[in-house]
């Protein structure tokens, strides 16, 4: 079991790495870039990359027989919200912030992740899922992992979005909903301690990252993915904590990524954050930490404008405080400062990420690999609350060797 988890968790790493590459290429391919020079350079890089891939004849299959994302892929929905078992790895990843109504509103963060991985011999699929709920008022963090073979108790439909794991599920309310008319139903929980039932309605259109539907990951011709994200969804539903039933509403972020490539083993971990600003924009950043203790140049920060267009900015990432997990002994970043440029104003901005609770560590009971994935508040330089975020820190627990 441990090994399975390690494989899949590595793919979580891949998710962030891919993001870095695809963002770069996307930018280089002519997205709104301020610096003409940088833009020019990136165009060259992208063009070379594109030609390189044509010359290298991107294979249809990996060496172990899984599909490789091909450029020009035309996505059709709802089919492509569903599973693609011809690819080795796939996941659906929902994080969000929800509140109870009225005076004395209570705040909660949640994470619901469904993974699928094919066996190397293609005979079977494994389904892994993580659930976490943070009660901000008490700091009580609940989480649970599950691992099942694909079948009656865990599955991902191919024709539409319908992924399940025991009593957890993520699916389209209307299985035949066309693109732009999606509503999602998330049913999750943590053991019998908490249950979460949410309806998710996209507030912004789907972002398909990458060049021509493919986000490239690196030099290897097979290193690519199809990467689809709803950066902001309205969430509304019911949260049950123990015997207490709460009506909640808020906002969520949903990723869906499909690939067959393996992670290069040179990173020890990554830091990732997804911010939803109150002004309707989003920001996503990641920083890859290398074995030598440095930061991989692929690290990147991307703004998503109110209309859904993306732009990349340089950033610096400074850990202000750390938190030590009593359960695993890992020391994670706690409060983090981010310095970057606002693409709307061109001004330098500085944000502080404050975890809503220190202990949002997934202890890795099933897999033996722990990571921190938690809800945060984002403040600007004046201390004003400007948005909500989810941050992810992996590779800090002693036993994680990636």
């Amino acid at each position: 079991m441990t090994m399975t988890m390690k494989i899949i968790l590595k793919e979580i790493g891949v998710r962030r790495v891919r993001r870095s590459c695809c963002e770069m290429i996307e930018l280089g391919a002519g997205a709104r870039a301020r610096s003409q020079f940088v833009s020019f350079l990136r165009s060259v890089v992208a063009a070379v990359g594109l030609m390189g891939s044509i010359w290298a004849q991107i294979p249809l299959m990996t060496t172990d027989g899984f599909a490789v994302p091909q450029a020009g892929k035309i996505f059709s929905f709802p089919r492509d919200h569903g599973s693609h078992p011809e690819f080795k790895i796939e996941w659906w990843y929902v994080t969000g912030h929800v509140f109870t109504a009225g005076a004395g509103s209570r705040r909660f963060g949640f994470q619901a992740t469904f993974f699928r991985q094919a066996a190397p011999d293609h005979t079977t699929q494994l389904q892994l899922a993580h659930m976490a709920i943070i009660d901000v008022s008490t700091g009580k963090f609940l989480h649970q992992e599950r691992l099942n073979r694909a079948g009656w108790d865990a599955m991902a439909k191919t024709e539409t979005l319908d992924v399940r794991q025991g009593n957890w599920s993520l699916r389209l309310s209307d299985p035949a909903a066309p693109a732009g008319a999606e509503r999602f139903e998330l049913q999750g929980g943590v053991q019998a301690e908490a249950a979460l039932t949410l309806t998710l309605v996209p507030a912004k259109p789907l972002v398909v990252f990458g060049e021509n539907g493919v986000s490239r990951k690196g030099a290897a011709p097979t290193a690519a993915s199809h990467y689809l994200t709803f950066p902001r969804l309205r969430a509304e539903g019911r949260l049950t904590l123990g015997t207490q039933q709460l009506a909640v509403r808020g906002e969520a972020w949903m990723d869906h990524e499909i690939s067959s490539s393996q992670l290069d083993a040179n990173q020890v971990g990554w830091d990732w954050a997804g911010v939803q600003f109150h002004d309707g924009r989003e920001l996503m950043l990641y920083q890859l930490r290398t074995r030598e203790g440095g930061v991989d140049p692929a690290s990147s920060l991307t703004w998503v404008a109110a209309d859904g267009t993306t732009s990349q900015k340089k950033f610096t990432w400074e850990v202000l405080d750390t938190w030590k997990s009593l359960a695993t002994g890992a020391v994670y970043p706690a409060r983090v400062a981010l310095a970057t440029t606002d693409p709307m104003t061109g001004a330098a901005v500085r944000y502080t990420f404050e975890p809503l609770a220190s202990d949002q560590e997934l202890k890795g009971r099933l897999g033996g690999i722990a990571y921190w994935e938690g809800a945060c508040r984002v403040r600007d330089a004046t201390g004003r609350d400007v948005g909500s975020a989810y941050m992810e820190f992996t590779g800090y627990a002693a036993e994680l060797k990636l």
Partner: protein
Amino acid sequence: MNSSVIRLLLQRFSLRHARLAPRASCLLVGILALGVAVFVAIRLANRAAVSSFTHFTDTLTGQSDLIVQAPSGTLPESVLWELRAALGARPVHIVPVIEATAARAQAPGEAAGFGRTTYTLLGVDLLALANLASQSPLPHGYFDQPQDTGGRGVRGDQAGAGDFWRAYTAGPQVWVSPAFAPTRPESLDLVIDERVRTLRIAGVIPTAKDAPRVPATLLVLDLPHLQQLTGKTGRVDRVEFLVEPGPRAPERRSELQTLLEQLGRDRWIVTTPGERRESAETMTRAFRLNLTILSLIALLVGLYLIFQALDGAVVRRRTEIAILRSLGVEARAIQLAWLAEAAVLGLCGGALGVGLGWLGAQGAVRAVGQTVNALYYATTLEAAGLAPGEFGLGLALGLGASLLAGWWPARLAARTPPAQVLPRGAPPAAGGRWQQSFALGAGAVVLGIVLAQLPPLRLGGGGRFPLAGYAAAFFWIFGGGLMCGWLLPLLAKLARALGAAWTPVRIALSHLRRPSGRHRLSVAALHCAVGMAAGMAILVASFELTVRGWIVRSLQADLYIASAGAQSASTDNFISAVAADRIAAHPAVAAAARFTAYPLSLDGIPTLFTGTDLALMHARSDLPWVTPPRDLALWDVTRNAGLALVSEAFTERFGKKRGDILRVPTPAGVQTLTIAGIFADYGNERGSIMVDRVHLRAWMGDDRVTNVSLWLKPGVDADGVRSELLGEFPGLAIFTNVKLRAEVLRIFRQTFAITYALEVIAVLVAVVGLALTLTSVLLDRREELTTLRALGFTRRELAGAAALEGGVVAAAAVAGGLVLSVALGWLLIYVINKQSFGWTLGFAVPWGQLAALAGAVVATGVVVSYFVGRWGADLPADREE
């Protein structure tokens, strides 16, 4: 009265007595101990046999909350999707289970037969198992176990991942109990259905520290593998539910139960592991109660003996007591002193008995376990341990028996008048008048006759216990014991007519013409033991006669073929339809009858649902009918869809008769069946419903068969065909007609082994009791003996007289015992056995055995008495006891 007086009495009176007659005291303690020991041994063995019923899944998942199981056969996997959908957001783990049994493959050349190690194969989703909270403290899972060879530590993660996938996608493999073997072999050869499978041993079943011990015979497989191995792909045997612990868990559990029951209707039964365990207990309850009753016989016989030993002591020490009384000791103090003496005997006997019982249990547990295995379900035999409660029970039993037996003698002692008024030479009181009462005996016998007419006590789960029947037996033993004392004068007259010329004969007979209470008691005790033993012999003989007849009538084919994996009543190994067809197509086969049996739960009571080729059976071998069918449609497969035959045990268990309607739940819905006839079946006491196999196959959605009977073409050598088939299907057990008949009888006798052992102990106790009686009688008569010696009688003559006396007592007991045995045999066959197991037996009296028993008891009585007489001849007249 004060306690110091009693203490003084105990020291100067009772203790001295014990010191002076140590052998008698030891014998009494020994008899008591034996009685207690037999009871304790059976109790321990019973408990071990029952407690060894394991709900195997518990060792993997922790205790399930609920279990869903088809009333018969398996459930389709589609119910899992349905169940998960129906449960919605409820946090419940759903664990589908396949449970099968398999025997170790027989070594080449090993004869077909039963009794090889049977393993329980448990198939659960080993990947999903890790999701259960109970699994969290495990050091590793199933698919990433440390290998015996290799250096995981130096390998990279990729190699580790490769190990996982290799282990996960490897073919059928088993995980074994830590107790499986000191050194695990690479693989294990198992007979599953008709095939011998070599299964790789993948590792050890990972268990948490506080989890129940994994039985050595448990093998765990990944669910899909066991489904494939047992031909149950797409089916599950049961589905277990574990409610996620947390808030409102009890309410959520009962909500789930209601939901499952509503969802299931006729398709499945919702139970709990506790109920499963309980049903295993009720299944064997009647059997265990019967054994317990039998185990009390030795104690009952012992009771007679203690009574008369104490009574004898009171009579002999009358003078002594009278002196004490005249010294002012109160009657009550004397009574208490006697009771205290009885209590000491009881405690010593009880304590010794518990120890002996524990020893005996080590042997008895095997015998009880074999029977349970043969008749009911697979047990993993555990050592019979002694609980503190059982030690207490043994002591209490010994104490109770001795106080009960000592009560009358103590009262007698207390009534002894003071020395001044004790008439010297007065005839000893010798027990009470009640025991000489012929009327009381006759009354008890009549009461027994009335009780024998009463119906059994109904236990849960279809079990029945013939309480009134046992009470009748008790009253007959008691009444018969009282009455057969009256045989003594009659026999004495008879003997006198035969050989009164010899003086010692006359001396001996003079004592028997007016038998003392002591003689009567001895007769009663021996009568009880002989009666019970002979009665049991009659039962077994009747049973054997009936079973033999049944075997001859029902086993008529030339070859019988079953999976070699089937080793006991509870195993469910099948032969695939393909193999059955290949067997039937063998050129030497004239006809092949296929038979299939499934466990069935009918109204919550376990029974069997079987199918066979009725037309073929009608043509080839008739069933042993209890109530033959009148409807000829039964034999026509196009017309017999709504008809069923049931076994006699079934009719007893469910209270049904020919013409009654049965509603039988099957995977294809509830079938309404009319009982067309009733046949005898001594193979199982759960009873069975038999329908045409064509219909059963359709209803169960399963074309496998349990066994195949072959009739060969004339002139074909059965052994030759057997070897040919075995060559093709090494996983089959093939019996020739002769061999199977012998095997059935062997198993039958094996189930009675423990009963025989109990009877032999009772007879032994009674014979020892006879010696004790004569010793006591001779002690009473020592003045007379001295006189006779003075008159010139030799020791041999006196010993001869004693031998005759003992022989007549034994003969009277045997005569009475034989009459009793016929009555008890009748009771056992027509009331107790019929009520407990639902089997009608013919009545057969094993004359040879009874004659041997009678001869042995009388001869032993004569010999023992002779030696007691020799010893008595040397008794000094004034020997103080």
